[in-house]
Structures are given as structure tokens and as C-alpha cells.
């Protein structure tokens, strides 16, 4: 029953996101057909062809309903700009972004856990410099960080390739650039949680049993520190998908982010909606996964006792 409700809620979110996008794109100035044609000279026949083909002569609400209808049938439509099926255009780019986001998330989580664990309740200097670094990291514009990373590690040191989506080594810099700001945010949240946990009596009890600091961190504290992080997961996913737009541009990676920019610029409604759909579904899926994760991390939240 809860599963059904959750599914319905998820559908509502996806529908809302798509509708929001539809409205926004149709409220923007400029005609769609101009956007499709772009800066080029077309014969009136070609123009009429485009209008008819995409149904642009229909009233807005009919366009909306027929779009929803097609969505329900699993048809994402045909991209104005890419000249391909939306599903195909997205499918082509999906893997690359997924990889980037996954590695970025991994780095952000791993890095945040390490930094938080290494600095929680440690000396003033050690902890203070980590906190300072985190605050700076949050405020560094990602494209700027990306370019700095490129200049340092690719152009000068030549440790990593500057561009391209293929090699695992090429993934390092973009993933780092993408992960730094969220990792800094996470690490602050985690350190807070860790420090609260380390003051809990069960930690003193564990130490009274002779456990090392590392063992205490690994077996007790980290798990508690992950709880608030899990709460932030929805925000994180959104941040990463959004961040991919800039990162992919700087590092010349293929992916959904760059597709998004192109699609919005070109008022390519079917493609934008397709992209929003993907991100909304990702958000919903992550939300459901996270709910499950809560139970794993904290048995108190499991449904049955």
C-alpha cells in the first residue's frame, strides 16, 4: 500500500516537473519555429512543413495534452534540434553523465566521510583548516575550479587528459570539479553529526570496551553521520545533475548537461522535457532508494519490529 502511494507520489512529481517545463518553455519569448530554423533562410514550404510536423499551429493546451498522451504511451517525441528521437538523443548521452555523476557522488561521499572523520574533534588547527577549506570550496564557482584543475593537472603537469569522455583517467578531473562543492557541504554536515555522535554515551561505552578511535569511527560514528547525509540525498542528486551542465562544458565531455544547454537555447521542447523527465525520475528513484537506506542505516526506522 505504501509502495503504491509512493509510486503515485513519484508520478505526480514527474508530471509536475514536465508540466512546469512545458509552461516555462512556452512562456519564453520568441516563436518555436524560429528557434528551430535558427539563423538560416528557409523557403515558406519548409517553414510550413516544420509547423505542421511539430503541430505548432495547434492551441497550446492541445499541444500539451497530446504531449502528455504521447508520454503516457512512452513516446518522448522527436527533438526539433537534434533531428533524432528524444529517447535516442538522451540514451546516447545518458551513460556518460551517469558515470560522471556516480563517480562524483562517490568522491563527494568518500571525501566527505574521510575529511569529516579525520577532523572531527581533532585539534583546533587541523579541524579549523578543514572547515576553512570547506567554506572556500563551497564558494568557488565550479567552472573556475574546473579550469584551475585543468591548468594545473592537465596543461602543466599533464597527469590527466584535458578533454574527452572515454578514458577512466579522463574522468578524474571532471569528477573532482563536480564533487568539491557538494563534498564540502557534506563534510560540514557530517562533521557536525560525527561530533554529536562522538559525545554520545555509547561511544564512551565502546571506548570503555577498549576499541580504537578508528574502530569507534568505523563501527559507530560513521553510520550515524550518514543519516543526515542521506536526508540531503535529494538535494545532492539535483546539485550533481545541475553541476554536470557546467562541468561537461569545461571538460568537453559528452553528456546530458551539455544536451540540456543546447536544448534550452534552441527551445527544443521535446528534448528539454525529456531531460527533465530523466532528472525527475532519477530524483524520485533516489528518493525511494534513500527511504530504504534509512532503514538499513537506522533500524529504529524499519517498518516492522
Amino acid at each position, binding site marked *: 500500500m505504501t509502495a503504491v502511494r509512493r509510486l503515485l507520489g513519484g508520478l505526480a512529481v514527474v508530471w509536475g516537473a514536465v508540466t512546469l517545463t512545458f509552461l516555462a518553455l512556452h512562456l*519564453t*519569448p*520568441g*516563436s*518555436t519555429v*524560429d*528557434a528551430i*530554423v*535558427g*539563423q*538560416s*533562410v*528557409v*523557403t*515558406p*514550404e*519548409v*517553414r*510550413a*512543413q*516544420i509547423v505542421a510536423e511539430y503541430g505548432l499551429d495547434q492551441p497550446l493546451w492541445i499541444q500539451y495534452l497530446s504531449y502528455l498522451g504521447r508520454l503516457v504511451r512512452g513516446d518522448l517525441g*522527436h527533438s526539433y*534540434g*537534434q*533531428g*533524432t*528521437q528524444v529517447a535516442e*538523443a538522451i540514451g*546516447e*548521452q545518458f551513460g*556518460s553523465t551517469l558515470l560522471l555523476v556516480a563517480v562524483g557522488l562517490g568522491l563527494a561521499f568518500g571525501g566527505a566521510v574521510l575529511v569529516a572523520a579525520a577532523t572531527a574533534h581533532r585539534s583546533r588547527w587541523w579541524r579549523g583548516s578543514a572547515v576553512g577549506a570547506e567554506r572556500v570550496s563551497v564558494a568557488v564557482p565550479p567552472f573556475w575550479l574546473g*579550469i584551475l584543475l*585543468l*591548468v594545473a593537472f*592537465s*596543461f602543466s603537469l*599533464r597527469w590527466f*587528459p*584535458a*578533454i*574527452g*569522455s572515454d578514458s577512466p583517467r579522463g574522468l578524474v578531473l571532471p569528477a573532482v570539479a563536480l564533487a568539491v562543492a557538494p563534498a564540502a557541504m557534506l563534510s560540514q554536515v557530517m562533521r557536525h553529526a560525527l561530533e554529536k555522535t562522538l559525545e554520545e554515551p555509547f561511544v564512551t561505552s565502546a571506548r570503555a570496551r577498549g576499541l580504537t578511535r578508528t574502530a569507534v569511527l568505523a563501527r559507530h560514528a560513521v553510520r550515524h553521520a550518514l543519516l543526515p547525509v542521506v536526508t540531503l540525498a535529494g538535494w545532492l542528486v539535483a546539485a550533481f545533475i545541475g553541476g554536470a551542465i557546467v562541468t*561537461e*562544458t*569545461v*571538460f*568537453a*565531455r*559528452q*553528456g546530458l548537461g*551539455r*544536451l540540456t544547454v*543546447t536544448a534550452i*537555447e*534552441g*527551445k527544443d521542447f521535446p528534448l528539454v522535457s525529456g531531460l527533465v523527465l530523466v532528472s525527475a525520475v532519477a530524483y524520485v528513484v533516489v528518493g525511494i532508494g534513500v527511504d530504504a537506506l534509512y532503514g538499513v542505516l537506522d533500524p529504529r526506522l524499519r517498518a516492522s519490529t
Partner: protein
Amino acid sequence: ACGSAPGTGGTDAGATPVPGGTLAFAVNRDATCPLDPQQSPASLTSLLARPVVDSLVALGPDSTVKPWLATEWTVSPDGTAYTFTLRPDVAFTNGEKLDAAAVKTNLDRIVAPATKSQAAASLLAAYAGTRVIDASHVEIDLKRPDSTLLTNLSTPALGIQAPGSLTRTPAEVCTQIVGSGPFTAGAYTPAKGLSYTKNPAYQWGPGTSAHTGPAYLDGITVSVVPEDTSRVGALSSGQIDVASDIPPVNVADISANSQLALEKFTAPGGVYSYFPNVSRGPFADVNVRKAFRAGIDWNTLVKQLFFGVYDAASGPLSPTTFAYDKQSSAAYAYDRDAANRLLDQAGWTTRDAEGFRTKDGTRLTLVHPFLASRASAANATLAVQVQAAAKQLGIDVQTQNVEYPAYLAAFVNNQYDLFDFSWSGSSPSVLGTLFGSNNISTGGKFATNASRLADPQLDQALSTALAAKDPAAQVAAYAKAQQAVADQAAVFPAYVTTVAVGTRADVHGIGFAPDGYPTFYDAWKGK
């Protein structure tokens, strides 16, 4: 056409080409339909299609037409029928043979509405039809004479693709094309690029190229790297062999680096210009236009902003264009005092609190829509400087940053005073594209005459030029047209579009098509 442009031969002088190797090439942007120039207007599409698609004829650097797929051709006396003799030995890489029917299939497809051609069809505006005479002879019929036809036929847009491959949907052709060229192309992935493989059977190189037979390179990979810093960095760190669109600021660095080389090509056709909208507002007054033209020191701006890499323009056409008129360039000289005088004459005599000129209480204001998200860094700085220089004249240039749809809407709906862009094109017929009264956007339809100039004299000169078969007559007619543009002050030319391609020092033989993109048929990599 794979003609080697002047100035590019220097680096490879004396060296013997070495076959083999794969060339890594980075471009700066994606195109929506990246591979089919019959559909897409993007210059990137021409670049990417060129290695795959051959044309009937090739255009040399001196604007002479050379044979390619057609060995010879004749033009009917009235200029409306062109008959081509095709090479007998040409095969497309999917096994099909080149014949007259293949040419007809291509040209008919270009003009068919279903193709939604956004540029190629306009190159065939006078097209009436194609007649297959026999397998190796084909006749193109025109509704009216068009002296630009041969030039247009040399472009990839009117290139001949394998007819069998054109039965697929337009969308499929966009990402994968089949031709008879020196390379075969893999599928294109947006934001990533594609790779080419050498066509070993290639024996029909264009008459403009340095060698015959198959290409030297085994293959080419093209990646899309929009960020300038990354593209230049990838080149200097050796991750790629060739990078397109080197920003002026990096040119000096690349020239100074012994591991790198810079290939520059000044494209013929239109220059990068600001266009006044003569149909409304202050620019309806020719004196204001002339004042704006004379009052800004375009020369100095270009030299300083672009670090001496680009040349300042003095006229709507680049000096390398056929029929470029040196006479009329005097009109583009800088004269600040004259500019102020002209403005006074036009009645803009009073000044407001901020120092802008006013007339009857209204400020001399010019609306300038600007597409910051797509502008190069260089053009963005130019816009800033133009605004600042205009301010010194007492003119308030309001640069409005808008998104692409709004940008286009402002243009199409005549809601601007100033517009900036460059329109390349290898022939002086761009004058018609840019200033012909038949090219003014009306009824919400996009057309390319940004100054909205409708000058009967100019129109007359342009149609004379199109109809003229004799080059001298064409030159005379185009000179008249250029003079008319100068008299009307219908353009503020800024700089001559210069293509700068960076390469590793061991890359040789990069050529440039007349439209200004690099070509790779003659290219090779030293060891």
C-alpha cells in the same frame, strides 16, 4: 574544395608527406544536424561533411573553378542550363557508382520541402530541375541565370551523397552520411564528435589539391571542446593535434611555442560587421549612420582587442573576395570631428545630464540585441568597446543581452537599431544576401538583410552581377553595389573574419576551404 590557401604551404615546404597516423582534431561547438549540409546551415556541418562528400566542381583560392567529380561542363548561352560530364570511375563507399541519376537524386532532395533544408536550398534558389542525359552526363536547369551556381556547387551543401543513403530519414542522415570522399565517417555523437577512416579506394581528388590518390591520414577523430582554455590547453599538452577557432589572445602563445604552429586563413565573403537598421529610429537618418561609422576608431579597436591577429575591415567584403572594391573603402575612414559635425547636422545637438545627445528631449539611443551566450570572448569585448566609443560620441548604445529565441525575435520583428554578425560565403553574392531588398525579414520570417536597406540602385547592380557571365562585368557590377553600400552607410565593418587553427608542429598539409574551414585531404603527420 580542398584548395590550399595562400600562406598555409609555408610549414610543409620541402617536407615529404608521410602516410599513416590518426589526427585528433577539436572543434569548438556542436551543430544540431552535424553531418548533412543539405539540411543544416551550420558551417561546422560543412567542415564535418567535407572529408566524406565530394562536389561536382572545386573552387580554387583564386576563385577559379576546377574539375572534381565532373571533368568538364558547359553553360547554355542564356545561362540557364549547365551540362556536366561525370568521372566514370567514382564509387561511393557503400558500393554505389556515381552517375547522372545520383546527381539528380541529391539536387532534388535538397529542394524538397520534406528535407527542411535551411541553407542548401537557398543556394539553389533558381533551380528548375535536373535532366539525366545518360549515365555520365547530367544537365541542371535554372529558372533564371545564376552566375554563382558553379561556386555554390563546389560547397559541401550541394555535394553528392550516395543516393542509396538518402532514402533514410533526414534525421538519420544528420548523424551518418555516405559519400565518395577520401574518408568515411562513423556515427556522430552530440557533444562528443565522431571519427573518420581513410577511404583506400579514393582516386578522384579535386583539381585544387596538392596530391592525388587516397588521403595520407589513416583516420581523423573529431571532438567537441567548447571551452577555449581547454581546447588550447589540450593542444599545447599534446592531447590533440589540431584545434579550431584559436582565440586571438592565444595566438601569440601558440606562435611562440616551437611545438605548435598556427594556420591562419582569411576567408572570402562578408566580414564581421555591425549593421545599422535603416528602417527605423535614429539610423533612418543617413547622417547618423555615417557619423557612427566615422566616429568609432574601428581600426584601433580591432588591432588592440584582437592582439593584431585580425585585420580591420574596410568594406562589407573581405579583401580576399572576388570583386572586392578597393575604391569604396575610403568611405570607412575614421574621422571623429566629421562624426560630431554630422550628428550636429542631424539635429542631435543638445546633451543630457549623462552627456548623451538629445533631440526634442529624446536621447540618441540605439538598441543592440546581443547574444552573449554564444558570442566569442573577442566579439564580446568588441561590443563593450563599441558601446564605450559610442558613448564618447554622445550615443547611448543599449546592449541588450537576450536568449537565442528573443534575439531572433528582435531581429525578425524589426526591434533593433544595431545588429552584429559576420556572414561568410565564398562569393561576392553575399552582398545580395546582406543588402538585397528581397532579403528583408517580413511577416515574422527570418531573412538576412540586417540593415533592412532597400536601395533600387543596389538591387539593380546585384541582379546585373548575377546575370553577367563575363567576370569583368561581374566585377564592375559588384563595385557599383559596394559603392552603394558605402554611400548608404549600411554597414559598419569591424574586422575580416580570420580563421586561426592551431596544430602540433608535426602536422602538415592542413588546407582551407574557401568558406574558411580546415580540410584534411592533404594533411599528414610527421614522425
